[in-house]
């Protein structure tokens, strides 16, 4: 399976330093607390998404879902470096980002249920999770929408003279939008404290990146704007964390933005109606063999993992109970918050 993945990734990258050569099971970290923390965040996202999927099929959760299974290492690794006063922007696939940045499972779950206790009081829904209190702009579900807005978050941080940092999450598909280019160039010339965190999961909805870009690596596009960039194994949470720590340090040191391209894979379809006919089961299995949870597992003991699992399941149970027992917004609440 590993050989298959190496072949697939080599075909999908022009970069000699792409992760195709680095793909090995990750080493146990020397910091067991860090490993446990990252494992817990990733598992929380995984179990949250699994439960949400079931509740959606059972008709309890309305709307649609864009799920994050497979990409957990990116949200967990990036947000682990950030403090509460740092901000992130997110996308139509925001569940993992929200949980990793500190939106509680209760507030996130209640929002998916359309309850008044949700992080957006039921007005945002799945695609707009966020909470300024934890440094997360309500997720922007227009592809690359966050890439222009994040420049203002970074600008306000720069003007205030402190060392806060903004991270913009986006997919490889966003890099064909004008907002990606305008936002990146503006951040570059203004030397804004922004980490552009591209989650390259190979497909924009059903369309392979290779079909819509002759440049195989998003990282190459950053070079066109004088922005340093790196390709990172997005399934290796420790690699994600290390690369982010470096980029964040550059921001805090007033060195300007960095673009990180995380090679990753979503284990589910684009949205709930997607049967994934556009990709091979060989490819899916190859990526699943590098499940970010499996890769980090050796860093923890069996009992430790079981403990975290039980803990996380209890937290999800609690979130579901909270969401179920919360009230729906009054219909009249549809008319508030249009204007401040």
């Amino acid at each position, binding site marked *: 399976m590993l050989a298959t993945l190496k072949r697939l990734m080599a075909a999908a990258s022009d970069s000699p330093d792409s992760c195709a050569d680095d793909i090995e099971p990750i080493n146990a970290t020397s910091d067991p607390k860090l490993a446990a923390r990252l494992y817990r965040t990733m598992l929380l996202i995984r179990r949250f998404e699994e439960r949400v999927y079931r509740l959606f099929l059972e008709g309890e959760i309305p709307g649609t879902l864009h799920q994050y299974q497979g990409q957990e290492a990116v949200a967990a690794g990036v947000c682990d470096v950030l403090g509460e006063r740092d901000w992130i922007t997110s996308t139509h696939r925001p569940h993992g980002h929200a949980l990793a940045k500190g939106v509680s499972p209760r507030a996130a779950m209640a929002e998916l249920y359309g309850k008044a206790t949700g992080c957006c009081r039921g007005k945002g829904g799945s695609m707009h999770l966020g909470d300024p209190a934890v440094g997360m702009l309500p997720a922007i579900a227009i592809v690359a929408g966050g890439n222009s*807005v994040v420049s203002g978050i970074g600008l306000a941080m720069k003007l205030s003279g402190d060392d806060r940092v903004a991270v913009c999450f986006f997919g490889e598909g966003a890099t064909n939008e004008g907002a990606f280019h*305008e*936002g990146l160039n503006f951040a570059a010339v203004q030397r804004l404290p922004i980490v552009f965190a591209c989650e390259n999961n190979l497909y924009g909805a059903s369309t392979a990146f290779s079909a819509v870009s002759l440049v195989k690596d998003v990282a190459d596009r950053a070079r066109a704007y004088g922005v340093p960039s790196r390709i990172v194994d997005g399934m290796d949470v420790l690699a994600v964390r290390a690369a982010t720590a470096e980029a964040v340090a550059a921001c805090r040191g007033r060195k300007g933005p960095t673009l990180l391209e995380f090679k990753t894979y979503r284990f589910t379809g684009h949205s709930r109606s997607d049967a994934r006919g556009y990709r091979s089961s060989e490819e899916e299995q190859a990526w699943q063999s590098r499940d970010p949870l499996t890769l980090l597992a050796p860093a923890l003991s069996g009992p430790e993992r079981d403990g975290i699992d039980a803990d996380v399941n209890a937290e999800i149970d609690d979130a579901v109970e909270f969401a179920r027992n919360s009230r729906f917004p009054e219909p009249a609440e549809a008319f508030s*918050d249009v204007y401040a």
Partner: protein
Amino acid sequence: MTSMPERASGSRRLTIAEALRAAIAEELRADERVFLIGEDIGVEGGFGGAFGVYSGLAEEFGHDRIIDTPISEKAIAGAAIGAAVLGMRPIADMQYSDFLFECMDEIVNQAAKLRYMSGGTVSVPLVMRAPVGASRRGAQHGQSPESYFIHVPGVKVVAPSDAYHAKGILKSAIRDDNPVIVFEHKLLYGSKGREVAVGLDLTTEVPEGDYTVPIGRAVIKRPGRDVSIVATHVSLYRSLAAAEQLAAEGIDCEVIDPLTLSPLDNETIFASVNRTGRLVIVHEDTLTGGWGAEVAARVADECLLSLEGPIKRVASFDVPAPAAPVLEDAVLPSVERIATAVRALVNS
């Protein structure tokens, strides 16, 4: 923090451009959260924005507060939105309102909706300045696109037409906690506008120091008994000129400057129509789906029994703005077309 309103110590006659500059400079001095961002606004040896409104501001406030950008409207709008969410009060310059279409996503999907879809946990206190108007520049530098934005809940739309109200309402816009788009007419900025304003003096007395004009309140520019005319920008001055002509014929027009197009001051307009029984709406935007249609619908809803005739709209014809002066003049609402519409209505 904004300063307490101080008594105006005096006043002087200013053009709209000078009044806007005074408003921006005063707000920059009073509130450190305010900054200006856009193309060609503070470049040394440049021109202080496309219409000179910002001349001298970079020298006083420096390049951290007068921020020149690449030609990237999406980035400008995005930067304003993001900074506003973090508590700043940006003024984003769009050079020409035609360029707003470059950042429709940022305005319509982001600025207008972030407060709502966050359940009221964030606000977006930003101002966009967007010059409108046919001015012999053709189809892509001469539109009046205010109407697109009155359709968007979450955005406020103002359209001042004289120096006093321009200064006061721009200050209100900067202090407002919502996105406000300020549409000004290019031909009304300076004293040269006198010609298009059919000889009317465009400078007005403008108090020195702080005062505000509220958003959402219309102004009756000329009281009258027979017909209500609602108009903005150059069309407002043409309506006033038409009113003068018609007065000689014994037709007494009331001319209303709505000043804010969203939220519209229904009360002032309804009260006027209930008095006069007749309504003519004049705007430079093209006819179909223009803001005049919204005013007409509201008046039809609320004042039908007061109306003595149909509601008339005088607007640019439904074609792109042509460049040749003779063609542009054929498309725009002229004094003659306004007067003809009023006469037909009164004599019907």
